[in-house]
């Protein structure tokens, strides 16, 4: 699990700090953003595996951060975490491509499980993509060989 980086976005500093501690104890690298705009800036500079994003942020909505991530780095798995349960937000988040929608308070065990699953999915997709690339290269090589 080397080099797995998780960005925690929440304006409640106590939440960010305690989630970071949970994640670090589990062996992940973490970063924190307290506003949506800061989060987007960090994402531009760094390749995170996972972003844990609150919806009610002081500047922009978490769903806007999500949409930006999908545009900038669709590879990143985004997990929305909110204390303000609303079906609209859930549907919007999932439609925008969120990997999961979690309601606060979430038990850290469950959060870690979700993270593990998403990392696994990410891994699988990427391996699938790699396989496809190698298949494609193989095909082209075969073609070249045939032509020769």
């Amino acid at each position, binding site marked *: 699990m080397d080099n797995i980086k998780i960005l925690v976005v929440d304006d*409640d500093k106590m939440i960010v700090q305690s989630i970071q501690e949970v994640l670090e104890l589990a062996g992940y690298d973490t970063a924190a953003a307290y506003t949506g705009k800061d989060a987007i800036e960090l994402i531009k500079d760094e390749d995170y595996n996972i972003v844990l994003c609150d919806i009610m942020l002081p500047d922009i909505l978490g769903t806007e951060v999500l949409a930006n991530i999908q545009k900038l780095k669709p590879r990143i798995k985004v997990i929305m975490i909110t204390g303000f349960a609303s079906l609209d937000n859930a549907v919007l988040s999932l439609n925008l491509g969120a990997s999961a929608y979690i309601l*606060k308070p979430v038990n850290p065990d469950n959060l870690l499980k979700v993270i593990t699953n998403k990392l696994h999915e990410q891994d699988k997709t990427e391996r699938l993509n790699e396989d496809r690339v190698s298949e494609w290269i193989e095909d082209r090589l075969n073609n070249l060989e045939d032509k020769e």
Partner: protein
Amino acid sequence: MRKDYHILLVEDNKIEQQIFLQYMNYQKVPYKFTVASSVQEAKKEIEVHLFDAVVTDYYLGDGIALDIFDFVKDVPIIVITGAGDEETAISAIKAGAYDYFVKTSNKNHLKLLPLTIDKAIGKSEAEHKIKILSSALMSIYDSVVLMDLNRNVFYVNSSFEKMFGFSSEDMIGNNLDNIWVKGELKKFTELISSDQSKNEGEFQNIRKDGSSLTTSVSVSTIKDRLNNLVAVVCIIRDITESVKSREKLVNYSEGLELLVEDRTKKLEEARKFATIGETAAMVGHDLRNPLQVIINNIYLAKMKMSPDFAHKLKKPLNEEILGSLEKIDEQVEYMNKIVSDLQDYSKNVNLDIRKTDFKKLLEYIVSTLQVPSNIDIKIKNFSGLPDFYIDSGSFKRVMTNLISNSIQAMIDGGKIEIAGGIDDKFYYINLTDEGGGIPEKFLAKLFTPLQTSKAKGLGLGLAVCKKLIDAHSGFINITNNHSGVSVNIKIPLRKELI
């Protein structure tokens, strides 16, 4: 009586005509006279003019007085006959003459004539009036019944006949007893026996054909000059339709009331649920964040106690655990504050207004707060200000909320300044911090309760502050300054203005 009465004198003897007119002139009888010398002349005059009375000689050149009777209608006729001609006079009366005079040679009969003409005209006019009254009674829409003292009917109008189906013949000489629904007769008898000169009542009646109607009956009595009861007048109005529409209206308005009541109830319920929904959403959101921190720290404490993680600890185990417990403690306190705010906001404000030393109060409040070491709270300009009238409990809450908000916003530390001031009307309290201010979009809704804003301290705390300050007839506003917020409070100086 009118003065311009017009009398027709029919007299074939020119000398008699002259004597008559001269005498009337001499007596200053105020009537206008027209003279006709024959039946034919009289007929012509009657066709052209309207006369109030006719005075005629019995024997006329071309006929007799009775010939005139045929074309004179509703006008009193006075006949003058020769002496010893009483039989003629009687036949004239029988034919409809009002009176007769016997000519005397000394013309004494002329002396009585003006009075007789007056009486004849008076009687004729009275008859005319009665005719008009009678046709008026006949033509009015209401039923009119006249009864004698023994409650025997002697008159009903045509509306009565139409209304009840009984003819005039059916009624006259009988009583009114058979037009009432059972039980109503007694009521009616009471109505007419009452001492009041006019009585009214609503009745249920039946027609001759058995169908029913609702009426309004008004009874009045007619008395003679000696105050003896002469007749009872009943005016009966059919109010079946108006009662129906009145009942409809009553039903309709009752229905409307029920409808309004029902809708109001539903609206109130909906509003209550909406409020509960808003409250639940706010409480839900605001309590879930600290809950998340608590859950995280419990998890962390458990993990840190496990030997598997011993190598990852940055500090000794007991310090790590204590750190988690302190965070849990903080969050529990924060949650408690949310619940207190909610209770404060929802309960009625009962002010206990007393003269208060605000500086002392502030110092006490600050002493109860956990102020981080990197935050400096400065209380200034309160010395020398007079005590003023407030409810100190309310202000403890207000200032605690405001100072806590500032402390929470000042993660990196800084200065909180609370300054006092006064003018002739208000006491001023100004709080400034260095917490970076409030995002623009929250400024407008700062005091609106249950705004589920994300930033801490913007849930109910400020709504509670506003409510308490409003209760003091004071004002509070919050603006951003270069490094934080500026909270301005003013409270009326005079106790009676609060």
